[in-house]
């Protein structure tokens, strides 16, 4: 199964753009990345990584990368449930308090964490 990365994180883009097929959502919000992914799952792509990876909560970091299958198969219903629950959680947190603007240094820390979580998942996908 080939992979497709959906990301709004420039660190992930820079590392994987030439190696793995990638949808660059630079400028999208965390929630918009989740919603874009949800639409892809409806089109038959399979969810491969957890959308709420990391214990950084959805209203704390602006950056999110998710890996799905490049192939479109039968509807991944479990994946759809997970992404819908994740969207609901994200909206709950944003309602509580919107994501703060963060300085470039902190933003880079958030990018680094998201990259690390994504790398670890991709490194484990060799068997696919």
């Amino acid at each position, binding site marked *: 199964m080939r992979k497709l990365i959906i990301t709004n994180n420039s660190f992930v883009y820079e590392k994987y753009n030439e190696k793995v097929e990638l949808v660059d959502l630079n400028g999208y919000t965390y929630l918009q990345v989740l919603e874009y992914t949800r639409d892809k799952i409806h089109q038959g792509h399979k969810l491969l990584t*957890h959308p709420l990876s990391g*214990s950084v909560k959805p209203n704390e970091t602006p950056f999110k990368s998710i890996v799905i299958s490049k192939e479109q198969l039968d509807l991944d219903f479990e994946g759809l449930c997970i992404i819908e629950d994740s969207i609901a959680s994200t909206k*709950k947190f944003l309602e509580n308090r919107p994501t703060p603007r963060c300085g470039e240094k902190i933003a880079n820390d958030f990018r680094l964490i998201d990259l690390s979580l994504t790398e670890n998942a991709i490194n484990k996908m060799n068997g696919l």
Partner: protein
Amino acid sequence: MRLELGKIKITDVQFGDATKVEGGTLYVNEQELIDIAMQDERIKSVKIELARPGDSIRITPVKDVIEPRVKVEGAGVMFPGMVGNKVKTVGTGRTHALVGSTVITCGKIVGFQEGVIDMSGPIAKYCPFSETYNVCVVITPQEGLGTHAYEAAAREAGLKIATAVGEAGRNVEPDEVVVYETKPLLEQVNEYPDLPKIGYIHMLQSQGLLHDTYYYGVDAKEIVPTFMYPTEIMDGAITSGNCVAPCDKVTTFHHLNNPVIEDLYKRHGKDLNFVGVILTNENVFLADKERSSDMVGKFVEFLGLDGVLITEEGYGNPDTDLMMNCKKATDAGAKVVLITDEFPGRDGKSQSLADAKPEADALVSCGQGNIILNFPPMDKVIGMLDYIESQIGGYEGSLKPDGSIEGELQLVIAGTIANGYNKLAARTY
């Protein structure tokens, strides 16, 4: 496996010429501890500071908390597989613990994810480490050192210093000796044939940078679920390498002093038969979740468990593992109780976890992390306040000019820790 845990009660901490315990006071030689940390060339400088209960001191950003312990009899050493220690199965013989003292590593790793300990004032009651005598190791890395390398350097410095401090308890007569014993499965089942067989499913944070835990030195994201004697954990077989949300961070201290294991042993042979720990991880890749939770379910069936307790670490991604483990343990024939904390929004009305299953019908809550607290100013800060507003639970405007903080409970180390080593709970009426 049988372990005698000798508890040496520490009632004060002071600097001294030698690192030793005398009359309940822990003396630490400042330079000796600095030298241990400075052996690592990734570290630029180290400061040792002491914090006692009641002091007007705020410690932040906190990375790890470690209880000093030493193995005095039996195979292996504390923290096997870490900091160059031999990998040898631990959990038997005798271990001495300096109960009431800790080693705390602090300093900025990344600009969030590390928390606050107040030694006095209204916030102190949310944190168990406001009641301990703390040796704080404030670390500054070499300039330009990458985050991964710095995390490793800070983690290793903490373990090495805690080992050196623990050594002070080697020849001290403990105030109390507690014996913990779990026998090999068939013997253990036969010992209390009429009592329900209970296991503990222990989920380790294992997602990536600052979300890692180590099992005998192995990064937990690389393990498949395995079985442990509970006493192995008391000897440091599991160590923390993470900086997740401060309120539910499981520090190395919490692994050594896991309250689920402690309480199951208290009832062992009375109204239940505690047969052991199933260890599993919390990965990002969904296929890993499927594999790990299947194997957890297989263990529950194979061990013939009647009931299990499950704890998790973190929010979001781990909630999915929690629910998968709950369902598969239920399907394997066990009754399941979950222990976790909640993030239901400030009004407490939203769903507490990011995932749910019908099988999750018994849950112990360790409190909710979204409530807003006011942290009064303290006379002294160990570490720095520079990052408060970007630390999890802090926000723009959190830090006031007088040094006070308005922020969520999430900021407090172990405020809602999801294994119950805290003071909050939810009750239904």
